[in-house]
């Protein structure tokens, strides 16, 4: 698996020397930078609008708004949940990543794939599963006559979010392990350290950047999560925001700003902790494969533990959704599965394509026209990713209504509640995920071959499409798959922005399970699971292709 998402943020830092050498003597490509500029405006405008309306609305009662015990409690809850999920994903992902890179665990490649599968299970589906399985009248009692605990509140949120966010940490730590020069461990051994001491003194510190990248992804996802915490009834900032949206919009806007600040603290913290700590390999030595650690008799208990983990993270949601599918529904609740699937596709497919196209233009800019302008535009796309969905949605609603006032006659709407707005919001929110694979593809393709085509008489555009574009196919497919995978699961944005009749699969699943209509929710759960699993498969396939191509090269 490509260190998929971890590239997203890492990419911002890895301006290669080759790029820097080619600094901007060429004229700035205005046409090429248009999509990136649109993204920049698209993210800055709503956020500044949100800020100004919040300030105007506060009317000097800001202290009262922010110092409510409920606000502080939600803030504490949010930080607590972020910290707890971070700790638990690390505790799970660290040994798992070590096992699939450094041990003689049987079928390591298969585990590397299987352990990414929880990506296909959105957090709220996990929460729905836990809620419907446990308790004195849950699935486990009905099927097995064993009463499983019914996790709610903090514990329930922690478990759901841990299982859901595990792959992000796992993927980054795994590629972190793979990047460590194995001779560091050997050097420590030759200097008198035992295997464990060598691991902790020489290797673990090398994982720091990978850990930070994974940690940022995890905390941003926990901060942005709405589905899990609302189903589990744990009042974090996002629950507070959504709850107050109906009753007190200024307060909601301030909660959104608070969430933005928290996201800013996380991103800033990562940058700060990473400063001066780029542990690239010192010299380009030949990486030798380390002898895998022998697990001995432990290997079977370890395999068993991994199976148990996967059962809870993937098997349980699938089984319980399948079980509820067979249960009688209440009859009158008719949700159009087809319309819902179509709504999801109508939003997610254009979003995936547009995001990938924009990512391509941005990748070309940073590769061929490096400089502060390219960097700034790229950084802003990460801002869209870091902005919690509810905050982004709220800001978009505000700016859309404001824009409609200018654009169309009173009583009419053009942007507000339009499909285009949802697609645009999704694109902004997930653009960063598309950048990684496209960028890697561009770097691998390089510019030499295109230059060769130019010297053979092709124009710049023709040369690009004849030479570089075909080499990018894998990267483009991976980008689209990543965006689509996230978009199909997206809940907060669609809740605030969806046009009439655009109830997506995710929305229906959340809405029905929020009403505890588990049998009704099951088909939507299974659809999301199935589609996501297919796209996780596409991602893994793209990764394997890229790898085999690299080996041939």
């Amino acid at each position, binding site marked *: 698996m490509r260190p998929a998402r971890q590239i997203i943020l890492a990419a911002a830092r890895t301006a290669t020397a080759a790029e820097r050498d080619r600094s901007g003597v060429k004229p700035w490509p205005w046409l090429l930078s248009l999509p990136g500029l649109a993204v920049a405006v698209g993210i800055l405008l709503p956020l500044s609008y949100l800020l100004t309306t919040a300030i105007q609305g506060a009317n000097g009662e800001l202290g009262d708004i922010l110092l409510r015990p409920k606000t502080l409690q939600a803030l504490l809850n949010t930080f607590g949940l972020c910290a707890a999920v971070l700790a638990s994903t690390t505790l799970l992902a660290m040994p798992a990543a070590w096992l699939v890179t450094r041990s003689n665990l049987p079928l390591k490649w298969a585990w590397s794939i299987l352990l990414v599968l929880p990506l296909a299970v959105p957090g709220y589906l996990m929460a729905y599963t836990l809620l419907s399985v446990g308790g004195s009248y849950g699935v486990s009692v009905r099927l097995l006559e064993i009463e499983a605990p019914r996790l709610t509140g903090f514990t329930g949120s922690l478990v759901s979010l841990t299982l859901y966010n595990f792959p992000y940490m796992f993927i980054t730590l795994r590629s972190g392990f793979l990047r460590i020069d194995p001779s560091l461990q*050997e050097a420590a051994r030759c*200097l008198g350290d*035992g295997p464990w001491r060598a691991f902790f003194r020489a290797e673990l510190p090398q994982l720091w950047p990978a850990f930070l990248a994974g940690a940022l992804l995890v905390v941003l996802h926990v901060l942005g999560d709405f589905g899990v915490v609302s189903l589990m009834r744990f009042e974090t900032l996002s629950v507070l925001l959504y709850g107050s949206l109906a009753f007190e919009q200024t307060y909601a806007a301030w909660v959104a700003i608070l969430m933005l600040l928290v996201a800013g603290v996380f991103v800033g913290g990562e940058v700060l902790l990473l400063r001066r700590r*780029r542990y690239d390999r010192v010299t380009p030595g030949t990486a030798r494969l380390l002898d895998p650690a022998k697990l001995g008799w432990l290997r079977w208990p370890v395999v068993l533990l991994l199976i148990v983990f996967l059962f809870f993270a993937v098997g349980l949601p699938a089984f319980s959704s399948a079980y509820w599918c067979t249960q009688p529904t209440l009859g009158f609740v008719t949700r159009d599965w087809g319309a819902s699937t179509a709504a999801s596709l109508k939003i997610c497919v254009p979003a995936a394509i547009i995001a990938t196209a924009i990512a391509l233009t941005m990748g070309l800019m940073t590769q061929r026209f490096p400089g502060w302008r390219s960097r700034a535009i790229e950084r802003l796309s990460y801002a869209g990713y870091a902005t919690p969905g509810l905050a982004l949605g709220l800001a978009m609603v505000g700016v859309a209504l404001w824009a409609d006032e200018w654009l169309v006659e009173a009583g009419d709407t053009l942007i507000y509640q339009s499909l285009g707005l949802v697609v645009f919001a999704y694109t902004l929110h997930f653009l960063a995920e598309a950048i990684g694979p496209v960028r890697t593809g561009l770097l691998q393709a390089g510019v030499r071959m295109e230059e060769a085509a130019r010297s053979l008489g092709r124009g710049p555009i023709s040369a690009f499409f004849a030479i570089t574009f075909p080499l990018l196919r894998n990267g483009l497919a991976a980008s689209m798959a990543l965006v689509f995978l996230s978009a199909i699961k997206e809940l907060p944005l669609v809740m605030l922005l969806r046009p009439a009749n655009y109830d997506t699969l995710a929305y229906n699943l959340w809405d029905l399970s929020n009403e505890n209509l588990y049998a009704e929710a099951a088909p939507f759960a299974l659809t999301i699971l199935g589609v996501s699993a297919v796209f996780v498969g596409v991602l893994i396939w793209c990764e394997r292709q890229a790898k085999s191509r690299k080996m041939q090269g």
Partner: protein
Amino acid sequence: MRLPQIHPEPPDIDGHRLCIERLAKRYPGAATRAVDEVSFCVSAGEILTLVGPSGCGKTTLLRSIAGLERPDDGYVRHGNTLCQNADTFLAPEKRGIGFVFQDYALFPHLSVIQNVRFGLRHGSKKERTEIAREAMHRVGLHGLENRRVQELSGGQQQRVAFARALAPGTDVLLLDEPFSNLDSELRIGLRKSLQELVQHCDLGVILVTHDQEEAMCIADRIAVMRDGQLLQVGPPPSLYSRPRSAFVAKFLGNSNLMTGQAQGNFADTPIGRVQIDRHAEGPVTLSLRPEHLSFDMQAGVTTPATITLREFKGHDLTYHVRHGESTYLIQTTGGSLYDIGDAVHLKPTSAAVVVEDDLHASALDQTS
């Protein structure tokens, strides 16, 4: 129960820092051994270079000595420490053998002084820092203590790696291609420092390289490996002048290899009758260094040869001369210049060395 040991008694290591005996290692799934019963010893103040073509097992041998690979069989002793025999396998950290990696393996998260101090475990931090600083001085590093290793040049990184390996007070140093990532000027300087260091600290050093020139100029003794086996060990001049086999002859410097029929101290070869270095009878393989072959325009015993190529190298000249099916290299200093196409007669100026034929027959008739 293990089978009876082949070597129940450790070999005598008096005067040797490190001895290995019949060390063998086969990778799982490989048809042949990567290291095939290799034995040698290293003394204090001595540099032994392991040379051989890539894939010959020299790095595996070095790693096996350090304990980074687990050999299947054999015996390793460092000073009075038994590192390995049939029943024992001492973990690398318990062997007290210093190792310098090809890519140096400096810890990128630590500063220079922290890297050098890494292997020191006893005493206060101040004491350890003092020892580390001393090790740095010994390798000629001054005032870089608090730099990050990424900020150092390749040569400086190399010295840090040396200092780090030396700091714990080891008397045996294993070096895996230590100069391969450096440019040639830096290489020469570092070789000299290494030689001084070995003399000054009375170290025993095993150095792996694929560069035969480097091997010859730095080594007290050279060990030539091929396909996991040790072919010949000895001081560079004796290996150069008396190669035991055709492979050793070709690997250390250029050589004209030819087959001949020996009769006493002479042999009949395609270029005529040549003197050989020992008494022999029947078919033999001979090695004649390019500087031991010359030619002139005067008619000789055999048919004339043709000059096909001339390489001017400043202080000497190398001619490629075609005779029959084979091409011969002739190295001369000064004298008159011959042109390509000139017909000449080959004349050996020194006795040819009788070598074991361990190359393919087809390769014999061609010189590089």
